[in-house]
Structures are given as C-alpha cells and as structure tokens.
C-alpha cells in the first residue's frame, strides 16, 4: 500500500489552531507534521509597556491555562527587580495554581479527551442498573445510582434523536472504542457532572482574584487583602467558601475523576504500547514552600531526565544561554545568523516570514517550513514537558509523595512503570498530577489558615513598586510548572519599561516542528509508529495528540513584521 497523507485540521477539543498531517504506510504512521496556524504577536505588543502590567497582557495568551502566564510574568519581574513575595501571598498563589491544575485536568479528561475513548452513542445500549452497580463498586459518589443513570441515558437518547449537536460526526462505532456500554454511560454522566462542577472550583480564583477566567495578579504579591474583621476583605465568610469548594473538589477528584480514569484506562492497556515519543523530559518544578528562590523546597522538582534513565536528574538553568535555545529551521521565521542556528530567548529574534502555501490549501507537503511555532531545545535535546515529565523528574529526584502516588496508580492498573512512556501513561499521569495537586491544595489552605490565626496576613511587598526604585537595566526569568508543563517568561527592563519579553511555553516544546538536525518534537515523535485502522476516521491520531493537552494560543505568540531584533526595538 502506498503512503497516504492524512490531514486533521482543525484538531478540535484543544485550545487554539492545530493542524496535523501524518504519513501512513501499511496502516502505521511513518512520519508526522505538527503545524500551529495562528499567530498574534504579543511579545511585540509588550515592548515599551510598564513591566507591572505584563501579567495582565500575558495572561491573555491563554484563557484555558488562565493564571499561569500571569504568575510567570509576575515572577519574571520580581526576579529582575529582586522582589521577594510575602509568605502569605506565596501560599495564595499556590492555592490559585493548584486550583488551576485540578480544574484544568478534570476539564481536559472529560471534555477534551474522554470522547476519544468513550463512545457516547454506545452508552444508549447500557443497562442503567448494571452501570450503577459497576460505578458503586469503584466509587462512593452518591449520584452513581440507577435512577440517575436512567435519567442521563434518557437525556442522551432525546438529544441523539435531535441531531447530537456538539457530538455530531464523531467517530462513533469505530472498532477502536473498547468500553462496555455501561462504562460509556458512566463516563457520559460524569461528563455532564464535571461540566457542572468545574464552574464551582474556579470560585476560588474569584475569591482571591476577583474573577475567572483571568483573575487578577500583582507584582510583589497578590491583590487581595486579608482582614477577618472586615466585610470588604478576605474574611471568614470568604475562607469558609474556599474551604467548602476545596472539599467538593476533593470529592470530585477522588470519587469521580480518578475512579473513571482507572476504569477507562483498564480497557485500553494496549495504548501503553503507543505514543511514547521522546525519551527526554523537562520540568521547571513548582509549588515553593520556602520562597520561590529556593527550588529545593518545591513540591515538584526542577530538572531534566534523558533517555528515560530515572537514575539521574540533570540540573536546569533557564538563565544559562547554552541550555535553552529556539530554532526556526522549519518554522515561518528567519534568523539573521542563518536558518540552522539556535538562540537563547535573551538573544531571540522574531522575524516572521510566512513560507507556506497560499490559502486555501489542501496540504503542507513539500513545504520545508510549516508552522508558526518555533522549536525549543534543552542542550540541543528535544524534550517532552507536561504532567508525565514532571512526575518522572520528581520520581527520579526521589520525592516521596510523588513516588507513592505514582506507585499506587500503577498498582491499581497492574502495569509496570514503563507503561508511563505512552499515550495511556500521559493521560494517567495527568490524573496522578491532579490527585497530588488536590492533596497540596488542602495543605496550602491549611497553611493559609494557620497564618490567618497568628495574623501574619501581609499579601504585598511594595518596597520596589515605584519605578524610580528600579535600576536602569534589569533582566529576569519567571518559571512556572503549568498544568501543561514547563513555562518560562524572560524579561528585560530598561528605564522602567519593557525592553524585550520572550515566552517559551509547554506546547511550543511539545507541538513544535522538527529542528535543524531534523529531530522531531513530542507530538510528531509520539505519532510515529502508531497504527491507524481507518484513514477516514483517524481516532488514533487524536488520542495521542490529546494526551498532551495541546494549547496552541500559548505556543504561538511571536511576530515582528519589520523583521527587526525584538530587543533592539524602542518604543515611543
């Protein structure tokens, strides 16, 4: 059989605009091309602005990963100016971020990923009574009863009769769907429950940040003040609300999400053989417990694992110009120093030059450059980032709580640790990540209450708020281990204004095109070797790509139409 080029565009149930082209020979993917097809130019827009405003602008990089860019931006400015954040503010930031992990992962599992594994139409064949018995066998969730599953099935039945709306034209009935009807029904019911629940947990963001999506952040701390004797501040009513939302979230994660994940995964163990992709993993680490300047205090370790060798964790330094570099050999950009060089973000150039086909087009075949994403490398290695990467780095670094939770999930699935290096492993890792974030969210809230009790409630360090207290030139890096993986913002400040601003985000690591040496990035590497049963319904491609939880708006944001070096541009 000749090679066929399978195109999936739009890849839906992700954030942003992604195109996948896969070459399939004899039913197996032999090559793949991952293309980001939208660009906005935010780094250019940031130049000349007040560094204290950058969190708000960069937060708008992404509304799915809301908060993470705001935090990375605040940290980059604080790093540049030598601002330390009060411990209570650090705890509130940790609460905000763990909340984001939990909400984001649940929404990804049910609303962005589940329909790759769960056949909604097949759920109509389920026996609701059997579904209830099955669900009760692995979960104490009180809605898992016959009446409820009957109600949901009736809803879906009526919905199917009226055309299926957002579920229309799915790959329903494809032989790759392996779940019994009862498990499909349980998952569909919890899809609806999760949709209703996710709007609750984000109220934690509204309490501390005023709204969600896009809560407010602040360089030097957090904007909310704590005063338990005042109605117009964070007081007992607000803290009680947060406490209750955390309890609800704890129940949802541990009685719905994790049990469903294990139940679904147990029918797809063959997917621990596919989608492994790269053998290198990078994590910046997260959740400071003793100040952001002390990564050894982090819940998740910072470091790199190479060749899947969990005996060694390599240190990572985002400020070292030899470590992280971005390439454009196959991206719609040019570099003054040539097509094949790599540049550290401090020295970054962003001269866009679209060199793809004139739209409308059918294929990117034959175009050497094929994406708006640049290609980042760590010491010239292609690296996977995300929940799997951070679990592996912390596992290798010997973090006991991480090892214990990973071990428990692998034990329940009865698979070896090697099973993690796969599409299934990536999806399971996200669940483990949410379970850990849930544990830590409770811990951070406990610490916040402890500080409130002793009236250690300062939430803002204003010593260097005024630009006149800043040096003429400063530079900093803000690292965040975001739900989707390693995120970094690099800032240069000159005379109180942003001189240069660069972001390298998780989906840029994972979804970028190949580099100058033709090394694939994660998406492409993970697709190669995967069988595709039906070229018209490439559910296998979607499964592996979704296992990364792509976020394209984050990944593409660079553009300078004049083709000048960003750091040389001044702003009137």
């Amino acid at each position, binding site marked *: 059989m000749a090679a066929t080029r399978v195109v*999936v*565009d*739009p890849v*839906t149930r*992700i954030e*942003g*605009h992604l195109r996948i082209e896969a070459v399939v020979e004899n039913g197996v993917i032999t090559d793949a091309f991952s293309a980001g*097809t*939208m*660009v*906005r130019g935010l780094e250019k*827009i940031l130049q000349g602005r*007040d560094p*204290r*405003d950058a969190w708000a*602008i960069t937060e*708008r*990089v*992404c*509304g799915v990963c809301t908060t993470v860019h705001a935090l990375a931006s605040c940290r980059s400015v604080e790093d540049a100016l030598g601002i330390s954040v009060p411990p209570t503010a650090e705890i509130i930031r940790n609460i905000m971020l763990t909340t984001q992990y939990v909400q984001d992962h649940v929404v990804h599992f049910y609303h962005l990923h589940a*329909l790759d594994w769960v056949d909604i139409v097949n759920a109509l064949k389920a026996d609701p009574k059997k579904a209830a018995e099955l669900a009760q066998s692995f979960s104490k969730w009180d809605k898992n009863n016959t009446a409820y599953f009957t109600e949901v099935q009736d809803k879906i039945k009526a919905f199917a009769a*009226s*055309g299926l*709306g*957002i*579920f*229309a*034209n*799915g*790959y329903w009935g494809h032989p790759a769907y392996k779940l019994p009807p009862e498990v499909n029904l349980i998952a569909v019911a919890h899809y609806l429950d999760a*949709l*209703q629940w*996710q*709007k609750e947990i*984000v109220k934690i963001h509204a309490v501390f*940040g*005023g*709204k969600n*999506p*896009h809560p*407010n952040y*602040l360089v030097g701390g957090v*904007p*909310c*003040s704590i005063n338990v004797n005042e*109605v*117009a*501040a964070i007081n007992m009513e607000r803290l009680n*609300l947060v406490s209750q939302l955390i309890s609800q979230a704890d129940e949802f994660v541990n009685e719905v999400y994790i049990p469903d994940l294990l139940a679904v995964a147990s029918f797809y163990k063959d997917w621990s053989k596919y989608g492994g992709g790269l053998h290198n993993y990078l994590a910046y680490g997260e959740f400071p417990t003793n100040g952001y300047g002390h990564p050894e205090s982090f819940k998740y370790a910072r470091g790199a694992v190479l060749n899947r060798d969990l005996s060694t964790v390599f240190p990572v330094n985002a400020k070292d110009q030899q470590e992280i570099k971005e390439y454009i050999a196959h991206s719609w950009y040019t570099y003054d120093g040539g097509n094949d060089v790599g540049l550290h973000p401090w020295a970054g150039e962003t001269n866009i030059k679209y060199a793809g086909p004139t*739209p*409308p087009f*059918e*294929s990117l075949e034959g175009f050497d450059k094929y994406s*708006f994403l640049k290609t980042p490398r760590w010491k010239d290695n292609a690296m996977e980032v995300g929940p799997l990467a951070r679990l592996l780095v912390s596992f290798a670094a010997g973090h006991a709580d991480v090892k214990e939770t990973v071990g428990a999930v692998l034990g329940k699935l009865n698979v070896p640790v090697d099973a993690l290096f796969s599409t299934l492993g990536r999806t399971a890792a996200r669940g483990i990540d949410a379970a850990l974030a849930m544990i830590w969210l409770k811990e951070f809230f406990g610490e916040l209450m402890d500080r409130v009790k002793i009236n250690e409630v*300062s*939430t803002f360090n204003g010593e260097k*708020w005024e630009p006149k207290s800043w040096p003429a030139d400063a530079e900093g890096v803000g690292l965040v281990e975001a739900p989707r993986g390693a995120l970094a913002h690099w800032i240069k400040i000159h005379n109180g204004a942003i001189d240069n601003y660069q972001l390298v985000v998780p989906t840029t690591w994972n979804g970028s095109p190949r580099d100058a040496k033709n090394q694939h990035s994660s998406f492409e590497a993970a697709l190669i070797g995967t069988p595709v049963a039906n070229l018209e319904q490439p559910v296998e491609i979607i499964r592996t790509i979704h296992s990364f939880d792509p976020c394209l*708006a984050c990944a593409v944001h660079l*553009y300078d*139409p004049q083709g000048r070096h960003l750091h040389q541009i001044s702003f009137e």
Partner: protein
Amino acid sequence: MGDTIWQSMQKKGYSRRDFLQFCSAAAVAAGLGKSGAAQVASAFEKKEKPAVVWMHFQECTCCSESFIRASHPIVADALLDVLSLNYTETLMAASGFQAEKSLNDTIANNKGKYIVLVEGAVPTKDGGVYCMVGGKTAESILQTVAADAAAIVAWGSCASNGCVQAAKPNPTGATPISKLVSKPVINVPGCPPIADVMMSVVTHLLVLGQVPALDDQGRPKEFYGRRVHDTCYRRANYDAGLFVEAFDDESARKGYCLYKMGCKGPVTYNACSVVKWNEGTSYPIQSGHGCIGCSEAGFWDNGPLYKHLTQFPGFGIESTADTIGTAVGVATLAGVAAHAVVTNIRKRSVIAEVHAEDEKES
C-alpha cells in the same frame, strides 16, 4: 431535528409544570422578570432548537471557558435543551473534515436561521495567513458563515474591539468582526464577558427571538448601560474621599476605593459590580484590584493599569455611553499637567487634592 423546545422537553419526561418553571427561570435570565414567563413559554412552544455555530479565530478561548461557567441555566442544560451547538472547536466531538462537515451542513440546512457566535479577532494583514483553519483564512471562513446567518454575536473584546492582539502596534492587523461583515453585530465585550451575561444574551436571542436593545457600540444596554463605578459597592468610599494608597495598606484592608490604584471603573461600562463573576462570587474590585477596563474598546492602550485617571467625562448616573459617546480615560503621565476633574461627585476638593499631589510628583 424539528422538535420545538416544548416537544423536546416532553420527550425528556418534563411535565407542563416543569416546563413553565423552566420558562420562568429563563424569563428571569432574559431580564423579563417572572411576569415574562408566559411570553417565554409561548416562544419556546413555537420555536425549534435553533442551530448555533461558534467560530474561533485570534483568541485565547477565555470566552469559551467563561461560557461554560454559566450558572443559570447551567451550560449542560443549555447545550442539551436550549440550543443546538453544532460547531465549536473547543468542545465538539468531531475533528478535521468531519468537523468541517458539521459546519457546512448547519449552514446549508439552516439558511437565514442559524446564529453565529464569534470568539476572536480576524487578522487581515498579508492575505490573512496569521489565522487559518482547515487551510482557509479566518477572514474567508467568517464571510462564509456570516453570509446566511440570522444573527452574529461577537464574544468578548477580541471579536468586539480587537483586544490584546489589536493593541499597539497590532502586528497582524487584528480586526473586530463588525468591521468585516455587512450585517449588524451584537458586541458582548469583556476579557472575557461574564458567563451569565453571555448566557443571557444567547437566551435573549433564542428565547425571545429578538435582538436585545443595543447602544451605539452594538452592546446590549441590559449589561453595558452602567459604569462599573456607578454600581460599585465601594462608590461610597470614593464619594467620601477614602482611598487605598498602596496595595494591602490599612485602607486596602478596610476595602476603600481603588481609584488611586488605577481603577478604570469610572470609564468602564459593564455589569461586573451588579451581576458579579462566577455566580455572584466576586468581581475584581471586591477582591482588591482595580478594574482594568477590559470591556472598553482599546483598553490596552488606555494608559498603564496602575496610573489613576485624571479625568473622565462628568455625567450623572443616568447617562449612558450613547449620550456621552465613548468614554475614554486619560491616565496621568509624567510631565502632563493634571486636568481639573469634572464629575458629579460631592467631594470634589478631595479629588483635586489627589491631582495636586500628582502635579507635585511630576
């Protein structure tokens, strides 16, 4: 296809009483008050579940995320019972050409009857190559879906005003929807808009079959007719001259007015301080940060976030954006003499003092 909403509710086993209760809730959501329930019930009995497509262009998906935070009705009920959302890249099951089929079928089968919701701006520079879906430019897709649409809603500040990608120097030529289509567009600005505001605009269209009353910027008056400042619970502090002077100072811990911290509430038309966010949980000012004015056109270029306004149009609480035109705040900049403030506030002298301080500093 083809069921009225009442028929589809009957099929799901709802009683007439359930139905009327639902209509009553929908009426409240649509701003009709409980007496509007009969009107709503009759609207539901006559109408099929309308076909809706949700387009994604230059955006960050915060509007989609906000929409799923809606609480009345919750989004699951809206998706299953109120509308037929046949295309949205964020949630739809189909990918690739099957997704495009869902879009094309909806257009072909509902000519003149479907509703287009647009999230994101459209880049127009260089032939539109800065946003492409399925190998086609955002601009060409927009023209195709808009041609036979019954109504077009621009979600959020990106689609309404261009938002962040249109901030200076607008590298990709990001353009609001209303400048690209020849039909009227309902603008629902905000970054993102409030979830229940979005749901209410949709139900206003679908339940009443009417375009809500709009101001001259195409915004529903229902939600964009009042300034955040005029409806803010901290307004009394402003009138009394009680201001936060620094984040987390004693005044911040007492919840005083954030005007001096750069709050853009005085020049921002939105429902934040009335409807509030996330089922009424809070809004930016309540949680200690000034309003950044995210629902106003060009707000990213309206001065730094933490510089307070030196002037804003002086008008009473009854005025709206229609009568005074676009409210534009001017932030204080070093070297610029502070303007005399003209407002309806009573403590004019206190505000004047603030500006005297500015002049001293600059």
